């Protein structure tokens, strides 16, 4: 395999120039990538303490790359394809309507949180699509690492902006890169709940999202979503199947009762209404390792209560599940 191509001896006079040219080309790019300065003086007193900060290291990432997949796995190219495919669904199926979208900042990090619903939740793509098309900035959707374990799905999820929900990942996105992150503090407790519990917010985890926002020094922006509960409601769950398939839960949805297996890929055309609440900033010093547990839990509970109130408000105003 090594000797691909015609077997000519490398020493052939005609080839020499060519080979030298190739070698030059191959080494040239290495050479011009900044010769490193001498790290120590000529006479070394034993081991100087390393304190130098490097000045602008030679970043050549873009030049060398062949795809636009970023360090989180998100590809803007893939995202734009998905946006084009999803847009009709967003516009004509769910007829998504936003209220207060201007409260989401056009730059700087912010942690978006929302209520979560539906066996295969339709709210995450709707929020990500809406923010990306309206504000023109990427949203990273933090979700359970379970997605990563699924072949195909995991890769697709990652390319379209999904990131495993790890506090460290969230901190880097929010603080170091000043981007938008979307989390659902209820987690799978919300998506696995049955239709009888619709619009009843579950516990907001252990308030981890508040702590991350405090540490990163970014606001929390709650979004109340109405409609996702009715798009794919769960009638009941079968725990045995979930265990056998190693899924977090196995739902039997109204969609699947009507449409069979097709029901797992078909949403009901519920009208989506999203209301952005006022951003919440915390008056604490960012960057600490730990924050007062009681403060964190209080803030989380306050946010949960205000979201629950907003949901009730929106439901009071809603006259029809399908037409809003």
């Amino acid at each position, binding site marked *: *395999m*090594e*000797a*691909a*191509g015609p*077997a*000519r001896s*490398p020493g052939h006079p005609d*080839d020499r120039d060519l*080979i030298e040219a*190739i*070698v030059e080309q*191959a080494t040239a*790019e*290495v050479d011009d*990538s*900044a010769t*490193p300065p001498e*790290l*120590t003086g*000529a*006479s*070394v007193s*034993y*081991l*100087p*303490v*390393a*304190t*130098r*900060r*490097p000045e602008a*290291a*030679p*970043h*050549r*990432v873009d030049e*060398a*790359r*062949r*795809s636009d*997949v970023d*360090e989180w*796995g998100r590809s803007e190219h893939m995202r734009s394809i998905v946006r084009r495919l999803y847009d009709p669904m967003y516009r004509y199926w769910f007829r998504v309507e936003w209220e207060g979208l201007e409260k989401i900042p056009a730059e700087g990090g912010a942690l978006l949180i929302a209520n979560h619903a539906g066996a295969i939740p339709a709210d995450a793509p709707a929020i990500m699509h809406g923010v990306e098309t309206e504000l023109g900035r990427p949203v990273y959707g933090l979700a359970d*690492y*379970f997605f*990563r*374990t*699924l*072949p*195909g*799905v*995991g*890769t697709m999820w990652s390319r379209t902006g999904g*990131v*495993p929900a*790890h506090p*460290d*990942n969230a901190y*880097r996105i929010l603080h170091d890169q000043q981007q938008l992150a979307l989390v659902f503090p209820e987690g799978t407790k919300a998506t696995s709940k049955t239709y009888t519990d619709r619009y009843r917010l579950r516990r907001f985890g252990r308030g981890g999202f508040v702590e991350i926002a405090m540490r990163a020094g970014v606001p929390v922006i709650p979004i109340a979503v109405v409609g996702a509960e009715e798009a794919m409601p769960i009638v009941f769950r079968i725990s045995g199947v979930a265990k056998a398939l190693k899924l977090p839960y196995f739902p039997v949805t109204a969609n699947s009762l009507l449409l069979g297996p097709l029901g797992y890929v078909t949403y009901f055309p519920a009208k989506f209404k999203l209301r952005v609440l006022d951003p919440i900033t915390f008056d604490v010093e960012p960057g600490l390792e730990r924050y007062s547990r009681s403060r964190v839990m209080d803030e989380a509970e306050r946010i949960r209560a205000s979201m629950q109130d907003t949901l009730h408000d929106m439901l009071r105003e809603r006259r029809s599940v399908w037409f809003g």
Partner: protein
Amino acid sequence: MGRRVLITGLDTFWGGRMAQALEAKPDVEMILGLGTKEPRVPLERTEFVRSDQKYSILSRIVRATQVDTIVHTFLETNSLAVPGRVLHEINVIGTLNLLAAAGASGASVRKVVVKSSTHVYGAAEQDPAWFREEDTRTGPVRTKLERSLIEVESLVRDFADDNPHLDVTVLRFANVLGTDIVTPISHNLRRRVLPCIAGFDPLVQFVEEDDVVRALEFATEHRASGVFNVAGDGKLPWSEVASIAGAHLLPLPPLRPRLFAAPLDRLGGVRFPPEMEGLVRYGRGVDTERLRRAGFEYRYTSAGAVHSFARANNLRRATGSTTPEYRYEQDVEQFFRHSPAVVRGIDT
């Protein structure tokens, strides 16, 4: 007095490269290399001592030569290269003896540099995108290689705790690619096939071989105690690695992909070591801020390392030539180094 450096694994790729790099430094007075076989690269002033892989003679050598720095490059990070039992002997028992010699009373050692690997973090679905040095792995230890490296690092940690007057540096290197190094990944890429797991396209990091040597040099020259990750900037998808290197992806089934490893190797010479499974499923990223803050500068990014390999590989394909094999000749080397007949200090 200049520095006196002992390198383990002189016959391996890293030992040889490290010795060559140190020979160029005028402040290094003496370089001593240990190896189980003869060195494979031409060396000018490095002394070579043959030893067994467990280094049982090491404490005598350390005492006799009064070395102040030990560079431990002889850790096997490819489980296909040696049988499991030998892997344990080389990595764990070898390190044990090395540390015993370095910490013996009367030893002149002041610095120990260990070349470890980011394999100690494993690769699992619950991993953070970027491991910091103090993070622990999230998944269970599944492979012999990872187990042995973790054991080595815990030995080194204990050693550093017991000998606070010594400067102990552990460098954890990401997967290496470059012009010359042969790893299972580069072996596959040279054959234009890269095994992957169907449905997974993880993000991976690489470090270029020159940066590996430079990082080892950096560690011997600076006071930098503790553990440091070493990897190029950025990450790139596994599929992009194949595309840059002009290789085709070979998808293995998501369930038990390792069942196909042995037949693949037998039939097509495609290497798929056990420690690669996690990597090609979930990828791995390490935070390199700590070494950067200590003053180290990388010459290559992760993608740059893959390009460096690809360029060298293109040249190999075009010319069909490889560098001529170097043969170590004991008597000749000894003559040039020690005979009074050789006039020193002139270019020959």
